[in-house]
């Protein structure tokens, strides 16, 4: 009889601790590494600009996508590197804000060369904007 009660108390305590840990993790979790997120679409810069001009970017918002294009420029501001990708035809660029752990890859990049990134699509202003990008 006592053993059954102890079992119940043990299960209840286990559940309570588990729920507390999960809740704390959910509240304090920062954005996960983009490398760990599933890519839902692979596009070229040209295809992504086409989707933007066609007003059909909505399907990819807050999702991880892979984009390849020509590196036009690298900008550094507020401790963040941003890659500007171009398709060579449009004045609309793909702006990729890099994740902080990508800094060591910057010296290997060359303007005018093809680069492939994976990032989270946030939307567009004059350009199409991706955050938390990783170079792949």
């Amino acid at each position, binding site marked *: 009889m006592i053993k059954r009660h102890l079992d119940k108390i043990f299960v209840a305590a286990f559940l309570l601790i588990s729920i507390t840990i999960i809740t704390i993790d*959910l*509240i*304090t*979790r*920062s*954005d*996960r590494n983009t490398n760990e997120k599933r890519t839902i679409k692979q596009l070229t810069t040209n295809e992504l600009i086409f989707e933007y001009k066609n007003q059909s970017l909505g399907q990819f*918002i*807050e999702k991880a996508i892979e984009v390849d294009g020509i590196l036009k420029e690298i*900008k550094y*501001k*507020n401790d*963040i590197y*941003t890659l500007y990708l171009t398709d060579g035809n449009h004045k609309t660029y793909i*702006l990729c*804000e890099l994740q902080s752990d990508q800094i060591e890859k910057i010296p290997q990049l060359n303007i005018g060369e093809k680069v492939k990134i994976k990032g989270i699509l*946030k*939307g*567009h*202003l*004059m*350009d199409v*904007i991706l*955050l938390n990008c990783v170079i792949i």
Partner: protein
Amino acid sequence: MNKTLLLILIAFINYSSHFTSKKDYKEEYIERQGEVSFFSYTPVENIQATNNQALSIFDIKTNEVAVRILMRAFVFKKSLMHEHFNESYIESDLYPEATFSGKIIDFDPSIETMQTRIIKGDFTLKDVTKSVDIKATISKVDGNYIIKGGLDILIDDYNIKVPALLSPNISKKIEVTFNFKYSQHEK
């Protein structure tokens, strides 16, 4: 012969002045990745987010400034805050941008030193547009312009609804700051 030379000279002067005026006409400046931050201070919790995806055009001929801010590009310390901000408070699916359109009062582009001025304009957040006066500094550095400033916005003014359970965590008054570094706009 002299007449022909004179005509050629007049044509050359006309061409030169046309070229010069075209060169001087570059009066639009652009910032593709302006910085906008906001702070919410309460005794329970301080919330801060930064966004490097604000697009702004500054016309020094008309003193007009236009800004578009991509709301989903605000970066928070915790991902749950980002989720609440976009899904519950701002409803970024419906209102992906906040915008500002205004004019700098008494701005003089010929002054090389920093100018502190008021920018009067309309700020739109979600489906609400309000007239605002923003105190800002305008500096000219290497032929380009830097505009910095800030404003306080009241969440009740912009139809931002915070659940009663979370209201002690979010200030009624949000402090917004911005820092835009413009360069000449080549269209």
